[in-house]
């Protein structure tokens, strides 16, 4: 897996066709088709909105909390989609792998790319909400693509690891689904970090430092919605702690690529 190969002509063609095929197949036979990938996070948002904002009065001290919540949900949805699809990518394309030799990572990337396209469209929806909610757009909004890039790289790393693991141990899909459920609550999506800080400041800081998904969600909220958002940069005082999430992402992707490369030789016979 050389970086130069990822963008070779042949691999680009293949990636494009695989992504296009995934899309066609996923929404085939459904009336609303592609709209579902927009509707799903919105519906989840509606439910959480009613339960947590309307009844439980979460986030009343955060301005524009509904959009704040929606952005978090959209980014979390991307993370789950990318990792779940990436994990199953190799196994579900087992027929191909057993019969033709081509770069395996292309399949994992293609699984995450369709999630990335969904994220882009969902972010457009978020932007519409942002405008309707009367949020003052700041120059900092331009930082959003970098935050998304970081989240994508992290998701891709997890996808590589899971995909390689899933070839050998099918149990991992169940484990990962349960893990994601737990992680959803361990990530400040529904509740603002300040709510945790009311109980324990240390826990609140820990939350954004050890979890790159939390860090990117908070960063995105900070740059797009409100500068009140606690991010690792403005909330953690020690300078040497601030880059920890990015280091985690970096280490994870290197480990993932190494692990995937090591194992891909045997995908064809194990899958």
């Amino acid at each position, binding site marked *: 897996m050389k970086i130069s190969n990822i963008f070779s002509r042949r691999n680009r063609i293949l990636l*494009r*066709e695989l992504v296009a*095929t995934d899309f066609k*197949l996923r929404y085939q036979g459904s009336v609303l088709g592609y709209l579902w990938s927009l509707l799903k996070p919105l519906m989840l948002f509606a439910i959480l909105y009613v339960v947590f904002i309307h009844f439980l009065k979460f986030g009343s001290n955060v301005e524009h909390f509904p959009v704040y919540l929606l952005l978090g949900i959209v980014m979390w949805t991307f993370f789950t989609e990318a990792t779940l699809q990436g994990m199953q990518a190799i196994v579900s394309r087992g*027929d*191909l792998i057993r019969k033709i*030799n081509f770069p395996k990572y292309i399949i994992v990337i293609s699984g995450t790319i369709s999630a990335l396209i969904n994220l882009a469209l969902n972010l457009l929806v978020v932007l519409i909400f942002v405008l309707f909610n009367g949020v003052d757009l700041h120059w900092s909004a331009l930082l959003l693509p970098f935050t998304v890039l970081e989240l994508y790289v992290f998701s891709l790393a997890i996808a590589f690891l899971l995909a390689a693991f899933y070839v050998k*141990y099918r*149990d991992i899909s169940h484990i990962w689904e349960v893990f994601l459920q737990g992680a959803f609550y361990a990530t400040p999506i529904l509740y603002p970090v300040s709510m945790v800080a009311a109980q324990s400041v240390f826990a609140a800081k820990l939350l954004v430092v050890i979890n790159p998904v939390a860090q990117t969600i908070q960063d995105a909220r900070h740059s797009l919605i409100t500068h009140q958002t606690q991010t690792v940069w403005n909330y953690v005082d020690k300078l040497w702690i601030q880059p920890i999430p990015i280091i985690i992402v970096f280490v994870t992707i290197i480990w993932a690529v190494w692990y995937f490369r090591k194992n891909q030789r045997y995908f*064809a016979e194990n899958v």
Partner: protein
Amino acid sequence: MSDKELAVTVRDLYKSFKLPHEQSGGVKQAAMGIFSRSKGYETQKVLSDVSFDIKKGEFFGIVGRNGSGKSTLLKLLAGIYAPDKGFVQVNGSLTPFIELGVGFNPELTGRENLYLNGALLGFDRGQMDEMYDEIVGFAELEKFMDQKLKNYSSGMQVRLAFSIAIRAKSDILLIDEVLAVGDAAFQQKCYETFFELKRQGVTIILVTHDMGAVLKFCDRALLISKGRITSTGTPFDISEEYLEQNYNADKDTVDNPIKSQVNENAPHLEGAKMHRDGDIKVAEAYEPGDTAVIEIDIKGGDESVGLGIQLFNSDGVYCFGTNTYVDGYKLKKGIKRVAFKVKLDLLPGNYTVNAATMDKGATSVISYHSKICKFRIKKTTEVEGVASLEHAWE
């Protein structure tokens, strides 16, 4: 020979698979494995010590029985499997046709599948648009391209797959038994395509157990058996050796066929043996044109009872059949042994003999005996087909 003339170099190749004992693809088994120290799998050696070269522009055959390891060898050549030891070196681009229609999805239309398959071969949309009409024309599927693939017949799928596969501009083609599919007319087309590709200097590797194809196409062939190369040589030598190997392996399958499912009270056969005319020693190998005698022990023979004989080749083709009614021969009452004399104007290969007793002018069969004996026609000629006709050029 310099390396530049070689398309494929294979050296000291070893490959084995781990076969899990039971469903061991889970964390539970992995966890238990830590404690019990049992391996949970068996190692099966599939290929051992395989080395050979294929020259550029050669049409090379890899021949072997089912389970001999030839498909594993093919997948190693294609880079799909990684060898345990040794290496495969390929000079130039290689396209495997291990199965036609790799990645075909039944839920997509023929057109969509074509573009996806094209992408696997490295063609982008623009190139596919250019070749589209030609491909579809070759496959003769113009009317069906917007239908979902699940509504295609298997023959149609194969035609579509083949038509796109041959567009791949590779230096080496790896073909696995694809010639066995499609109807006669399409097969003819495939053959012509292979010849055309060969003329263009493409190296072709054909993996098959069809000796006809090897004799027809290959310049050289390799015989593999139980994961080892038995020999490499001309298609003629290899096919001779292959037939012999098959013949010996078949031996066990003819087991006491006479007694099976026979009503002891009705007329039936009790035994049979085959030998050369004028030599009572039982023989199994003959040359084309030899005259052989099949001696049949019969019980309950009668004037009204008939006896039929059928010859089949190893592909199951019914080559010849006759019976006593057709030939106007009457079995005497109480007869114990009948001799059937036949001139074996057959082509080299393995044959089996079936026999039956019947009555009422061959309209009903009393007892049927498959494989009462078998024989082999030795490879002394290179003519092809089903029958060895007497012929001359003038």
